[in-house]
């Protein structure tokens, strides 16, 4: 196979683009270091380990134009509404803040603001953390995101404060006439003993996107603080998404994260969690469901730097049609991280002979008193189970959907936010089939495993 030449054009366009963008004075430092990092990183090829199974050739056609704000806001709410969820909401379209769809939040001890609307005190928090948690070494898109920092969202929860409602951060992408790019940023800072629930939601119109969204989330969780984090990707299948979630965990802090990703043209996100101080806990559950010609690539890196930290990581994927997925999960136990407990499980279901999964769970251990396990499986639907369902009158297509959904049901049922579970069911049903006769068991939550009330 011939090696594709590095897409110098793409990089130069990107650099030229970010150079011309106006930005607030406080961001000069992070932008400059991001710029330098991006300029120095080679463009990934098939030989670059982190990008081995995700080709960036599609980006040759990607220009760095400013996305047009062509989206009719009247239609926005149907894209992001989570029925029954009482939440604070901030809405961004193509990376730009939309005040008219966003809530004004005034709770003592809580700061929630768009970067461009931040007051002096909020701005001080932003500049203190921005760029200091995200890592640019493995992901050039994060470097580029640093170089382009301007708009974004800040959540700052003060010491001993509990955010009284979930914060729903909606990122809407709208279809563009020519290829465009947009940047989005999210900074969550929880001071010691603070608690919050945050939903990062990525949606788009159902039409060819022509838009690349480059998004970076940085999360600081202080001593004894806890964040419940959700990341939901349901953009159109033509979307390009390059994302990163970077988490710093401090003493006895907790990070609980649920991630759901439908496929895109290329959807790549990295999750990096640093157990910086002892006693921290990270629990991550994720499902990815590409179909047609979609592509999903998830890389997770868990760094056990301090002792007595725990990680529990479970990802499940269902690949249909000609879809491809990549899962790379790395747990790295540093020499001082004694008594670490870490568990990584990745299970995959291939629904067609042309679907693909490249999974690589990795454990790297430099401490001698730890308990770690990792594993990955790849399977197809079980014929025996299928026949069992058929022998009770259930059609083959419905049986296949029941078994596929069963593969991820356990993870979905463990989502503590009930309105979210209820919103996800029809979304996922639609993913398996548009024929509601075949997905009625998904839509009918009364018959769910755990949701059936009082015995």
């Amino acid at each position: 196979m011939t090696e594709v030449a590095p897409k110098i054009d793409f990089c130069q366009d990107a650099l030229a683009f970010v150079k011309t963008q106006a930005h607030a004075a406080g961001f000069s430092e992070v932008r400059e270091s991001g710029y330098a990092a991006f300029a120095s990183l080679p463009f990934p090829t098939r030989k670059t380990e982190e990008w081995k199974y995700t080709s960036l050739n599609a980006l040759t056609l990607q220009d760095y134009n400013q996305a047009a704000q062509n989206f009719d806001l009247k239609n926005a709410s149907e894209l992001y509404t989570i029925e029954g969820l009482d939440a604070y909401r901030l809405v961004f379209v193509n990376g730009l803040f939309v005040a008219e769809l966003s809530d004004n939040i005034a709770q003592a001890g809580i700061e929630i603001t768009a970067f461009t609307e931040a007051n002096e005190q909020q701005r001080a928090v932003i500049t203190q953390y921005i760029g200091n948690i995200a890592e640019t070494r493995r992901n050039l898109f994060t470097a580029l995101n640093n170089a382009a920092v301007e708009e974004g969202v800040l959540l700052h929860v003060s010491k001993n404060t509990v955010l009284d409602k979930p914060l729903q951060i909606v990122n809407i992408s709208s279809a563009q006439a020519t290829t465009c790019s947009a940047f989005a940023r999210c900074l969550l800072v929880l001071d010691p003993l603070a608690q919050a629930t945050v939903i990062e939601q990525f949606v788009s119109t159902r039409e060819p996107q022509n838009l690349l969204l480059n998004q970076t989330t940085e999360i600081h969780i202080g001593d004894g603080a806890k964040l419940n984090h959700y990341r939901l990707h349901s953009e159109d299948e033509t979307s390009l998404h390059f994302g990163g979630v970077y988490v710093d965990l401090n003493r006895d802090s907790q990070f609980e994260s649920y991630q759901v990703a439908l496929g895109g043209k290329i959807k790549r996100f990295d999750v990096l969690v640093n157990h910086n101080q002892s006693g921290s806990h990270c629990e991550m559950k994720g499902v990815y469901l590409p179909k047609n010609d979609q592509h999903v690539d998830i890389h997770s890196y868990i760094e056990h730097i301090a002792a007595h930290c725990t990680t529990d990581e479970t990802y499940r994927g269902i690949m249909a049609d000609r879809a491809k997925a990549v899962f790379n999960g790395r747990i790295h136990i540093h020499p001082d991280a004694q008594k670490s407990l870490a568990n990584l499980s990745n299970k995959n279901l291939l629904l067609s002979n042309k679907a693909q999964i490249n999974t690589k769970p990795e454990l790297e251990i430099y401490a001698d008193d730890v308990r770690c396990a990792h594993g990955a499986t790849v399977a197809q639907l079980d014929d025996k189970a299928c026949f069992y369902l058929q022998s009770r009158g259930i059609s083959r297509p419905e049986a296949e959907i029941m078994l596929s959904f069963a593969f991820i049901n356990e993870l979905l049922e463990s989502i503590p936010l009930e309105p979210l579970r209820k919103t996800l069911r029809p979304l996922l049903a639609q993913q398996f089939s548009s024929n509601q006769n075949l997905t009625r068991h998904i839509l009918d939550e009364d018959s769910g495993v755990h949701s059936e009330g009082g015995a």
Partner: protein
Amino acid sequence: MLTIKNLQAKVEEKDILKGLNLEVKPGEIHAIMGPNGAGKSTLGNVLSGREGYSVTGGEVLFNGKDILELDAEERAREGLFLAFQYPVEIPGVSNLEFLKASMDAIRQHRGEDAMDSMTFLKLAREKCKAVNLDQNFLKRGVNEGFSGGEKKRNEILQMMMLEPKLCILDETDSGLDIDALQVVAEGVNSQRGPDRSFIIVTHYQRLLDYIVPDFVHVLADGKIVKSGGKELALELEEKGYSWIENGEA
């Protein structure tokens, strides 16, 4: 109800059924006994439409319809039910969800409306009680982590819910202790009626103490080699299958 004429079938190029004839009338209970490898389970699998079993000759009429042409799910909807020898565990699909999907499909086929959730739940709980399964089993994954006896009782529970016309019990008694056996037998007996027939495939006579058959057939080498009344089972128990196989009868 069921007419099997000269049925021949093979599995992976091996002839298993070699010209089997059987006539089951409404309301009758037929026991099929036989040594290991005689083709007992193959008969159940062929009748219920499992893939991997190819019928090479003969015909099977179920209420006048040639069912060999039908998919497994269509046979089930027509009223054929196979209680599995080894029920499959399906984590992630709850028993309740499974029963509902099954009932919906079968009722739809019969031209009936789907049962509303409350009526359905009430019925399911009632039937659970009848087979002595705790109601929590409805919420658990299908057969997931069930003991052998619980799995078999779950099969009977499904049978009671779906109200089939013909039930084939494939070695439902294997691996059951006497208590579980009685529960299963009571379940079956409660379902007996003038319009419902049973084929009970078993290796042992024991089950037939509790479910009294109208006819007993001996299956050996892919054919029914001897038929009789319930007393034939006792005779078999006493003399062993070699009595038939050696042609001493």
